[in-house]
Structures are given as C-alpha cells and as structure tokens.
C-alpha cells in the first residue's frame, strides 16, 4: 500500500513547514515592532498563523497514522523518541529558570535588603492556594493514568470520562493560578523576586494550558475512535507531557513557593 518495502514514513509534500516559518517570522518580527512602536498586530498575525499551522500539521499527522495506516512500529518508535527528546529539552528550559531563582535567592543582594523574600515583598502562603494547586495536579496525574489503563483494557467510555476529568482539573488549575496572579500583592516588576516568580510560574502555566489542550484533542480524537487499545501513541505523548508539567509544578512548589517564602536574611 505504501509502495515501498521499508517500514518508515516518507512524508508527502506539505505546505505547513513553510507556513510555520512565515508565522514564526511574523511572531518574532512582530514582537520587535510591538516593543518599538507599541503595535503588536504583526505579532498577533504571526501567532495566529502558527496556531493554524499547528492545527493543520498535526491533523495531517493523525490522518496519516489513524486513517492511512502509515504509523508502523518503526514510525511509532521514532515518534516516541521524538517526544522524549522534546520533553527533555523542556526540562532544560525550566532548569535555567530554577538556576536563576536559586542564584538570586541564595545570596540576596543589598538592594533587596539582603534577605529573601526581599523587604516589602509579601510572598504567598504556600499552604493556601499553591497547596490546592498541588493537589489538583497530582489528582490529574491519577485521572490521566486511570484513562490510560481504561484505554488499554478497551473500556472506552471510562477512558472518555477519566480524560474529561483530567482536562477539567487542568482548567481548574489554570483558573486558580489566574486568580492568584490577580490577587498577588507583587508584580513581575518587583525586583528579581517578581522576575523569577512570574517567569518560572508563568511559563509553567503556559505549559499547563498546552498540556490541557493536548489532552482535550486526545479526548476529541478518542470520541472519534482514533485510539485502539494497543495503539494510541498520541494519548501516551499527551500523558507524558502532562506528567512532566506536574513534576515541574512540584519543583516550583517546593523551591519557589515553600522554601522561597521562608524569610531568611543576613
């Protein structure tokens, strides 16, 4: 059916890499224009093009896999390693923000009052909303695992139910974090405390939104019967990404929210 006698997938011609490049250029040049001229229109156009591209590119991937049968074991092997390496690159991305946080908090400068949290900064009580957020993400880890096991056991109704719960928990986390951001007595401009806090938790929140979206797409695909009990790598990739997001949160909670809120000074 493929016309070749090897198990690999030589993809058809596609316009999406080109549109992705156009979108990326629009996004980056748009940011420059936005910062210089306070006009972010080009930036939004670029972002919109990128989002459309992602939708169409990945729709093509699921068509090639689910409907055209092109995802052989060899191809799935490649996809697995691709996802693993991508998540690894994201780990390194967050590592840099944790480095920045510890650099600043282990040796607070004079300008902060030589203490952490800095003088005048009211840190969040880690055992209020942040602890709830921790519980929400841990619970979502349980529900996504439940969904996976249900899928493996061909219990497709329960898979949908557990996946829906996972997505709802992800949305709940996002709502809680937005609420916290709104309530925060300090902003990103409040010394290096604000910078490290909002950049680290902000990128994490973005990853939660991405992960929730990925899981939601899996839910839709599942209702269209794309997944079988033994071939559902898209779902596994989403679950891996979701666990990664959860682990990053645990590190954020322990280091920035908990350890970083205890006043220590010289």
């Amino acid at each position: 059916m493929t016309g070749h006698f090897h198990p690999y997938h030589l993809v058809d011609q596609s316009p999406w890499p080109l549109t992705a490049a156009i979108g990326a250029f629009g996004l980056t040049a748009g940011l420059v224009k936005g910062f210089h001229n306070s006009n972010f229109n080009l930036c939004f156009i670029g972002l919109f093009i990128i989002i459309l591209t992602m939708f169409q590119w990945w729709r093509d991937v699921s068509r090639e896999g689910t409907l055209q049968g092109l995802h052989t074991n060899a191809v799935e092997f490649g996809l697995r390693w691709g996802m693993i390496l991508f998540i690894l690159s994201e780990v390194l991305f967050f590592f840099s923000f944790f480095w920045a946080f510890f650099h600043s908090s282990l040796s607070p400068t004079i300008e902060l009052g030589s203490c952490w949290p800095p003088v005048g900064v009211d840190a969040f009580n880690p055992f209020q909303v942040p602890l709830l957020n921790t519980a929400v993400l841990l619970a979502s880890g349980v529900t996504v695992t439940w969904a996976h096991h249900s899928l493996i056991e061909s219990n497709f109704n329960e898979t949908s139910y557990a996946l829906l719960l996972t997505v709802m928990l992800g949305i709940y986390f996002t709502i809680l974090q937005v609420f916290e951001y709104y309530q925060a007595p300090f902003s990103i401009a409040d010394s290096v405390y604000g910078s490290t806090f909002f950049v680290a938790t902000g990128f994490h929140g973005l990853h939660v939104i991405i992960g929730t979206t990925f899981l939601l797409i899996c839910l839709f695909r599942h209702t269209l019967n794309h997944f079988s009990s033994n071939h559902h790598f898209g779902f596994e990739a989403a679950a891996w990404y979701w666990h990664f997001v959860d682990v990053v949160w645990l590190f954020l909670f322990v280091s920035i929210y908990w350890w970083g809120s205890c006043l220590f000074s010289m």
Partner: protein
Amino acid sequence: MLRNVITKLSQPARSLIQQNISRGAAASLARGYSSKAHETDEEFDRRYEAYFNRPDIDGWEIRKGINDLCGHDLVPEPQIISAALRACRRVNDYALAVRVVEAMKNKCGNKEKEIYPWLLQEIRPTLDELGINTPEELGYDKPELWLEDVHDIH
C-alpha cells in the same frame, strides 16, 4: 563559639571588657544538634574564616556565605567577621561590608547591648584598616522614613 561568653555575661557585675573568653566548656553545653554536626567550634570558625579568606571569592559567594553563617544559632567570632569584611574589600562592595556589620549586630539578638559593643571593639582594627563605617556612624540604625510598615504609604 560565643555561647560560652553569653553564659558568663549572665552573671551580673562582670564588666564586658574584663571577660576572659575560654572555649573549653563550650562542648559540655547540651545542644539540639542533628547527628551530622560533629564539627568542633574551632573547626567551624576555621572553616568559615578560610572560606572568606579565599583570594578569588566573588560577591555572590560572600553573600551566600554570610547567609549560611547567619543561619546558625550563634554570634560569629570576630576573626570570621574580619575575614568577611576583607572579602568585601576585595570585591569592592562597601555596602555589603556595612551590611555584614549590621547583620552581626542583628545576630546578637536580645543580648545586643552586651555583645555588640565588644564585637565592634574586636573588629575595630579591621574597620579602621579598611575604612568601613558602622551602620550607627552612617545613621542607618534609625529609620530613614518614619514609617512602621512598607504598606503605610498613603
């Protein structure tokens, strides 16, 4: 460390300047240490003094060292403080040097009146050599703005 001095200070009618600091009895005081802390007082002092005496120490490491030092339940020995002040001189951070003196004053806790003047007396040669003013000489022992709380600005 100075916990022996503190014990002696609690005896009234002893003038601070006539103290004879001896360290022998320090180890006999009961402390709630974890099993890991098997360092003697002298080793502790030497370790911190050596840390601050490193010729290539940088500002980050000095601040980290002071933070760690202040995390312990003790008033650091004058030689450690002097080593820290000299480290501040090497990295050209005058503000940090003044802050170090202020932090040591804070570490005296509720025995500040007894310990701090003695401490200043002990580090006075280093202060004079490096030209460091104490927080009191700079007026930093009084509030700069007459606000009790950072949120009191209306």
